[in-house]
């Protein structure tokens, strides 16, 4: 039984089929890449999986449970956490506060703590957040405002916040966008470490070097439909995939 399984996942925006009948399975402990040309429906897929959009039809099963149509906060509670394509952070909070919000679901503090404790946050929660920051290499920046961090660090902070929510499956939407070779290499190494610690990963990425080097399996979308699926080697030599990315070539041009 796969950790995540969709059947006939479909999303229509008016007359446009952004995602059309996609069957997707992600097994426990995998790193799966979701690729495809711009507009192929990758981010829509993420929005459907994470409950930000309701699917038009089809089902989503996570850890054996039907989560189709659940609201996003309920899906996060079950261990399916996403990050965003564009750098999305609480810009005017410190890195530590950002991660504290990621810890939201696992905090036991209620109204009584809020009103009667001298400390705003329990010491162990702060410690947990610092551990997450250290793990992602942001430990030294805990007290900096998110907006003052360099772009690469901001992207990693986004991942750190998602990690604080303790996902079983982490959806990463273009984690290395806008990074140089060195930075993207470090992030992809981090992604592997996260997987090794027991979190399954599904990622969307345009950086083919990063995808090919990290993912065990790749799913290719084109015009909202699944075009191909397989190991990086299989996918990168698949004629249909090459055509989708590069066009049909001379044959097509002549006709």
């Amino acid at each position: 039984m796969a950790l995540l399984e969709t059947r006939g996942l479909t999303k229509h925006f008016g007359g446009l089929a952004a995602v059309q009948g996609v069957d997707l399975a992600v097994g426990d402990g995998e790193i799966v890449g979701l690729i495809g040309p711009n507009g192929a429906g990758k981010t829509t897929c993420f929005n459907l999986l994470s409950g930000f959009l309701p699917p038009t039809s089809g089902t989503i099963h996570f850890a054996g449970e039907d989560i189709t149509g659940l609201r996003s906060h309920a899906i996060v509670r079950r261990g399916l956490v996403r990050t965003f394509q564009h750098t999305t952070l609480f810009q005017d909070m410190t890195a530590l506060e950002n991660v504290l919000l990621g810890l939201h679901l696992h905090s036991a503090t209620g109204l009584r703590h809020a009103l009667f404790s001298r400390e705003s946050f329990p010491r162990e929660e702060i410690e947990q957040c610092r551990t997450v920051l250290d793990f992602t290499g942001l430990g030294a920046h805990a007290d900096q405002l998110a907006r003052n961090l360099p772009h690469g660090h901001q992207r990693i902070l986004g991942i750190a916040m998602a990690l604080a929510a303790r996902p079983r499956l982490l959806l990463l939407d273009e984690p290395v966008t806008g990074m140089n070779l060195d930075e993207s290499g470090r992030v992809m190494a981090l992604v592997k470490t996260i997987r090794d610690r027991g979190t399954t990963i599904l990622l969307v990425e345009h950086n083919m070097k990063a995808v090919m080097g990290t993912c065990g399996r790749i799913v290719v979308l084109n015009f909202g439909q699944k075009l191909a699926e397989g190991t990086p080697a299989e996918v990168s030599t698949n004629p249909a995939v090459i055509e989708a990315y590069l066009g049909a070539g001379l044959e097509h041009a002549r006709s």
Partner: protein
Amino acid sequence: MIRRVVLAVALLGALLVPQVGNDYYVHLFALVFINVILAASLRPSLTCGQLNIGHSGFMCIGAYTSALLAKHYALPFELTLVIGALLAALVGTAIGYPSLRLRGVYFAMVTVAFVEVIRLIAAIWVPLTRGNSGLSSIPKPNLLGTTLTTRAGQYYLIVALTVVTLLILWKLEQSRLGLIWKGIGMADHLAQSLGVNIAAYKLLAFMIGCFFAGVAGALYAHFIRFLFPPEFGFLVATNILVYNFVGGRGHFIGPIVGAIFLSLLSEPFRGSAYETIFFSIAMLLTILFLPGGIITLPGKLAGFRWGRAASAPTPSPAG
């Protein structure tokens, strides 16, 4: 440290008003503190990014509820206060639950409509509220079996409840709850992606605000002892909003500073047409010159001075 001194001085000043000033000043500062409660209690909703322009409607509910219960059933103030505030929170929940999914200006429109509806109910339901003739001879606050007959006693009651309200709101803002509100205001979809039920937290912020607006209303009712529907209209609600913006939205102290500053400065115009003009000008000046509100003024002044000193080359650490 400086903060504590300022707070202590402010509190001492507040306590000394009845000793050094006459009834006029007691009256003035009592209204100032009621405005402080109103302004501070609007803050949680504003922090979530919800523009509530109907806060005086909830104050109205608290005021009439408390006044009528005390007048007709001779209930003690501690009871009428709580019932009034709870009713305000309850109505807030009923209004907030369906409308908090609306954003920005649409939510604001709902609250504008609400405050006018409440004002009209108070004006039209004559058998209960005496309508636009006003509800008069509201009993003095009867607290724990003793009636506060003196102006000073009633004033201290308001000061005490203002302090309690501010303490509670401050603690909430410092807690995880406050961080979540802030997060929703900055990037609600991100908060959602971390498992925050944003609708629930927005509703909670709104309810808490309505509760304390109800508290302010009850205090007002038993201090002024006369209720008149137009005093709870749309313009009053916008004033509460202006306190927040002029004071500054970046810190808890902002709405408090704004309420004190504007209530005192607008005192000469109270009740006249110039009051609206005054608040409009205050708002415009803030937007133009102090977008962060009065609380950013000290920092700006300090920065201005450093800016001049820095015209000579100064070594800056870590570039």
